[in-house]
């Protein structure tokens, strides 16, 4: 029994099959990357696992329990955190309040939630923005808030949807270091969607490739970059863009 098991997931948006019989497993403690061209179905797959969409077919098992059809709040309570590719820019709550909401997932005490939120801010080196509102922050920081509040729910599996997109070189390196720290220090299993190839390849121990809703490859980064199907999927996309 693996930590996360995804069996035969199918998601059909009225004829457009965004996920077509996708299966894979993730072991506890791993860092797994999910890549694929635009529209490959990566975010859809995340949503099927976490419960934003209910898959038309297939099964999701987490720690031996069938969580297919769970609502997002239930999968979170079960121990899966996730961030969003597009973070909504809000004006109603400060950064520390956002993280407190995450912490409230596991406690009823406001004082404890506040304490945990400050610890999280410290861990992520974000103390100086704690009293700011999301709309006042640059995109890279907004994403980090999204990560911080997901982390505050104390997930065992964290699913990150393009946390590094739009980051510059140094910021990307920092993100890579942070992800490794989360994995090593906090023992969190990571499953991340990423567009920046170098980043996925450096951070992931294993990579899954989607194209047109189908899993076309899976393996260690070194093999994936040499895989014919993967090269075709990416080059094909480039040619299409060139026209």
């Amino acid at each position: 029994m693996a930590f996360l098991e995804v069996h035969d997931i199918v998601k059909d948006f009225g004829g457009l099959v965004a996920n077509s019989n996708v299966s894979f497993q993730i072991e506890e403690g791993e860092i797994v990357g999910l890549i694929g061209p635009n529209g490959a179905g990566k975010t859809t797959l995340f949503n099927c696992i976490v419960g934003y969409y209910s898959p038309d077919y297939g099964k999701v098992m987490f720690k031996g329990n069938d969580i297919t059809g769970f609502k997002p709040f239930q999968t979170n309570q079960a121990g899966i955190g996730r961030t969003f590719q597009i973070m909504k820019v809000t004006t109603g709550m400060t950064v520390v309040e956002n993280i407190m909401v995450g912490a409230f997932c596991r406690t009823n005490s406001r004082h404890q939630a506040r304490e945990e939120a400050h610890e999280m801010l410290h861990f992520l080196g974000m103390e100086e923005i704690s009293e700011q509102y999301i709309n006042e922050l640059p995109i890279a920081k907004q994403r980090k808030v999204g990560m911080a509040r997901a982390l505050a729910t104390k997930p065992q599996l964290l699913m990150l949807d393009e946390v590094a997109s739009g980051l510059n070189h140094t910021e990307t390196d920092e993100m890579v270091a942070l992800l490794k720290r989360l994995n090593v220090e906090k023992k969190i299993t990571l499953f991340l969607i990423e567009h920046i190839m170098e980043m996925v390849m450096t951070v992931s121990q294993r990579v899954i490739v989607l194209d047109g809703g189908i899993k076309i490859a899976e393996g260690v980064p070194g093999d994936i970059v040499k895989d014919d199907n993967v090269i075709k999927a990416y080059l094909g996309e480039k040619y299409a863009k060139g026209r």
Partner: protein
Amino acid sequence: MEKVKDALDFTDFSGVERFVLVVFSIFLLAFPWLGAGSFVKAVMIQFLLFSLFGMGWNTIGGYGGQVELGKAQYVGIGAYTVSVSMVWWNIPFWISMPIGVLIALGYSFMIGYPLFRLKGHYFAIATICTSLVLQDIFTNWKLVGAAKGIELPIHEHPDFLYMQFKSDTYYYYFIMVLFYIALFYMNWFRKSKLGYQLRMIKDDEEAAESLGIDIRWCKIKAYSIASAFVAVGGGFMAVYNLYIDPVSVMDLDLSIKIALMAMLGGAASLWGPIIGAAFLVPLDRFLGSWLGGHKGLIGVDFMIYAALIMVVSAYQPRGIWGIVEQLRGKGK
């Protein structure tokens, strides 16, 4: 114990705000001895009552951001429970009022469960409809006086058990105590887990769900708390007016005023509903007595409210309190 401490803890407000709160409290305490006439006293009682309504509405409507326009049905439940219990079984206010609150809670869970499958405008319309349906039932329900309503038996002597007093001063202090209970409760609520979760729901429902929040259940809880608040106010209305009918305690008018006052003053802020009531109750009373003498002007008051709400929401969606914060440089 920690809850009580949080409820009484206003330290996260600025010095000016706390100072105003103290001065305002002294004024409220001293008010009956300032020699105001009965009209002004009645306006003050209305002000405190609508502040109570508005604070209740603020849980679901303000912090939760759900446009709730059906609070009158719960005012009605509170008022009718107290009235019917007294007329039929001679049950004292202090027993019938809590029963009314329990009925309101039960009913709000029943209504809230299907209601919160809906979102946005559909939710707002549905809240109006459920309230209108209940009002219709009471308007046709012979047993509870139908459209004629219920008159409460007047006791010869003042009676604390039945909350019957000759002088308005007693009613004034009673509603003032309720007002403070509500204020302290809301001061705790805004800092509570549910308060934070509701604000997250208002900001970003998708994200809230990803943080382990059962959105629908949170909304139902807040809706029920709001309903309990206004049911208490309804019970008060029954013993204060000694007469209720489906129009006075269940009309759409009332639902809209409750929401409007809180929004005008500043939804999702502790002071908002109080500020809103301080503006609109006197205006409402003044317009009421003035328009009463001018047939054909019925509805003008609502046109004025509509204009007010449009001006406020165009200029500062967070209401009068939002404007104040903006002027103090705290606005965003």
